[in-house]
């Protein structure tokens, strides 16, 4: 790459947790002026490696050097002081403070102990200009989008004279335009000689920006490659360690032909359903066995539609028919009563109860449906849970460990299992594959296909167009909180076509009258 000396090396790193060998003799190096992607499935050891690097964890064995000198950080603060800054997936800033303050708090410019606000604002402006970000440094951080907040976090990180910048899944909540802006910033920093360690689940992004790739699998180093010399398919193979037959099978064709066509009474038929300041009135029908994809950019109203259909938010407009009979979905309890299940986008905050065990999490919805006065017999619980742990290959396959100990993908599967055992007629999946690794992603996609073959209707909300195209019979496109198009997924429809709908907002087709 740059041919110079690596700014950072990690040699023979091993780290064990009780029962788990998280890292096993892993080597890693980082050169100045490169973007280096760290790839691997969930549980491959990426997070552990980063935490070892930034001093959150100590190592069992191995050496870390920075600029040729051996270092061992006692915590993120020490690492930051030494020039190794980390920006996490969740923005760890204070939304109640101003942009300038978020960049400088803890090291504000001062005179005689008094914070020099003018100087701080001036420096914040200069720093943000370097990132090509034109925002009001006096405004509260919370008034900006997550993407901007992420940039501010980066501005904070690089101000500490960072030489190594660790970006841990910074893009998982950004939309395409925001990712592009982030990449521009990353390139700029790279050209300034900063070494960037980039962790992401999005393969396209890796090929869009990374110079080199290090792949981990099961806590072991698979190898380090130049991005240009590693085709995408081989990368995926190296990550999951097996051939891609499963993936390819799914990739064959867009799925067509819902189980019994679009004929007959729709399972769910909503007319002009809407909620003021959340989503404009829309009409949508979903038939038994049909997968309806809901596409659109982040913040386009996808989640709002899903929440309306589940009764999590109350519609103030429109009518709903389930199996032909008029009803209303005013609360989640009503929706569950009609056989509707909802896997939330925000699995940590709204779905998974991390302290409870896998078993308890899985039976939660079924138990709620039965009412708390009729507890599910333990034997029946164990049967059900065991069946779904096996069917969804939830790992580790121990139903009694707390869900918080599972990786993101496996937590998602637990959430799916929770709804599957209630045998819903319509399952709403809001971003079920976000932030999980490619293997688990494929499994979830396959599962969705199988469920719809079995007659379940699925509303599949996703930011990834390929995924929507692959799974859906019908695709509804959201833009600016409005359903702008409904497309039947046939040969004419491809990612470009959907992108056009998103971009133009035109092309109302196949909208049921």
């Amino acid at each position: 790459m740059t041919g110079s000396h690596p700014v950072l090396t990690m040699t023979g790193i091993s780290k064990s947790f009780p029962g788990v060998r998280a890292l096993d003799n892993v080597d890693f190096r980082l050169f100045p002026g490169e973007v280096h992607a760290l790839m691997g499935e969930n549980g491959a050891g990426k997070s552990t490696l980063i935490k070892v690097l930034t001093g959150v964890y100590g190592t069992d064995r191995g050496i870390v050097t920075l600029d040729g000198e051996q270092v061992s950080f006692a915590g993120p603060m020490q690492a930051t002081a030494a020039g190794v800054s980390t920006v996490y997936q969740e923005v760890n800033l204070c939304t109640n403070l101003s942009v300038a303050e978020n960049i400088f708090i803890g090291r504000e410019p001062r005179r005689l102990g008094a914070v020099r606000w003018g100087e701080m604002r001036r420096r914040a402006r200069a720093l943000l200009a370097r990132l090509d970000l034109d925002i009001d440094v006096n405004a509260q951080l919370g008034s900006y989008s997550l993407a901007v907040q992420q940039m501010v976090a980066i501005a904070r990180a690089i101000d500490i004279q960072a030489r190594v910048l660790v970006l841990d899944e910074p893009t998982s909540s950004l939309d395409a335009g925001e990712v592009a802006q982030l990449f521009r910033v990353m390139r700029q920093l790279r050209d300034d000689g900063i070494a960037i360690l980039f962790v992401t689940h999005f393969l396209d992004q890796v090929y869009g920006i990374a110079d080199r790739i290090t792949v981990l699998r099961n806590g072991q180093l698979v190898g380090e490659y130049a991005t240009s010399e590693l085709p995408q398919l081989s990368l995926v193979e190296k990550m999951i360690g097996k051939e891609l037959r499963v993936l390819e099978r799914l990739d064959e064709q867009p799925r067509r032909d819902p189980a019994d066509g679009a004929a007959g009474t729709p399972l769910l038929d909503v007319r002009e359903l809407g909620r003021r300041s959340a989503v404009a009135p829309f009409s949508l029908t979903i038939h038994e066995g049909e997968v309806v994809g809901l596409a659109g950019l982040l913040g386009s109203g996808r989640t709002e539609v899903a929440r309306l259909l589940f009764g999590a938010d109350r519609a103030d407009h429109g009518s709903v028919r389930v199996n032909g009979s008029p009803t209303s979905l005013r609360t989640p309890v009503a929706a569950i009563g009609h056989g509707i299940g909802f896997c939330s986008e925000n699995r940590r905050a709204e779905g998974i109860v991390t302290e409870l065990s896998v078993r308890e999490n899985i039976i939660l919805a079924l138990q709620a449906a039965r009412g708390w006065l009729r507890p599910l017999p333990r034997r029946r619980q164990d049967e059900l849970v065991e069946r779904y742990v096996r069917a969804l290959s939830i790992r580790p396959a121990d139903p009694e460990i707390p869900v918080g100990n599972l990786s993101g993908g496996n937590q998602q599967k637990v959430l799916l299992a929770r709804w599957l055992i209630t045998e819903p007629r319509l399952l709403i999946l809001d971003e079920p594959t976000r932030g999980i690794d490619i293997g688990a992603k494929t499994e979830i996609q396959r599962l969705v296909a199988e469920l719809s073959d079995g007659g379940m209707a699925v509303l599949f909300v996703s930011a990834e167009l390929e995924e929507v195209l692959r799974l859906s019979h019908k695709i509804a496109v959201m833009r600016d909180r409005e359903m702008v198009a409904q497309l039947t997924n046939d040969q004419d429809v491809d990612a470009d076509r959907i992108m056009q709908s998103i971009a133009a907002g035109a092309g109302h087709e196949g909208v049921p009258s």
Partner: protein
Amino acid sequence: MTTLSLMATRTWSRLPRRHVPVLATLLLLLVLYGVGVSQYRAFSNIQVIFNVFIDNGFLLVVAVGMTFVILTGGIDLSVGSVVAMTAMVSAFLLREGLPAALVLVIALLIGPTLGFLMGCVIHFFDIQPFIVTLAGMFFARGMCTFISGSSIPISDGFWTRMSQQRIGNPSGNFVSISVIIAFAVVAVAAYTLAYTRLGRNVYAIGGNPQSGLLMGLPVGRTRIAVYTISGLCAAIGGILLSFYTLSGAPLIAVGMELDVIAAVVIGGTVLTGGSGYVFGTVLGVLVLGVIQTLITFDGSLNSWWTKIVIGGLLFAFILLQRLIGIRYK
């Protein structure tokens, strides 16, 4: 282009919403004052406002300390008892014949020490501030009765001077020394919150303690500091109260912590932390004081009406905070 689209994603209006509660309080205060002036001729005398400060100077000081605590998202229930204990200890030590200066130093040390200890318990054992300061409240109140079951009068020269000294203009309007001290405390507190690292950390921790930790802020030290500051303010409040009443009584200032919390919240500080100003707290105390004065002027209303009105106002302000969406957590 991308910059433009990012600008467009700003979801809030430019009007800083965090200022809305303070402005609402200011408006309320003006309305109350207007009602007073229009109803009672004597109300327009500036001395009425001065008297509000004279009667509530100690409350203001304690409320300033409470503002620090609430800004971090905490609560301090011990302040009323600490005020009483400080006054009690002063009265007791003065009766025992200790010199006034020494008594002042001792009395001013007790509050912050207790605050520091409570802060340590809250931080190191990760216990709810509510319960820790509740324990502190019982302890301090118990100490009052332990010192003496009945009221102890103060006849010390320094104390009586501080009590009777009037600072005024030729037209006869005046304030007490307590008011000057209270305003000094307000000024120092406002400066601390706006211009020192400690102050900014208070806001950061109230906004998001987890982020504060990851940004390398001294979360523990700051949290302990705010309870110490609250204790110090309660101690100063206790001294001011003993100037005002020239005695220490075991059952004085019972329930005062709740008045103080009400004043801070009406002053626009958000109970979940991260947003609020000392200036708002001054307004909050003024609102309480003006309501009291109005009810006194009326003469026919029971003084419990003060509580009823404050209850209603508190309710309205919490709803206001909710409606304008100041929720950082």
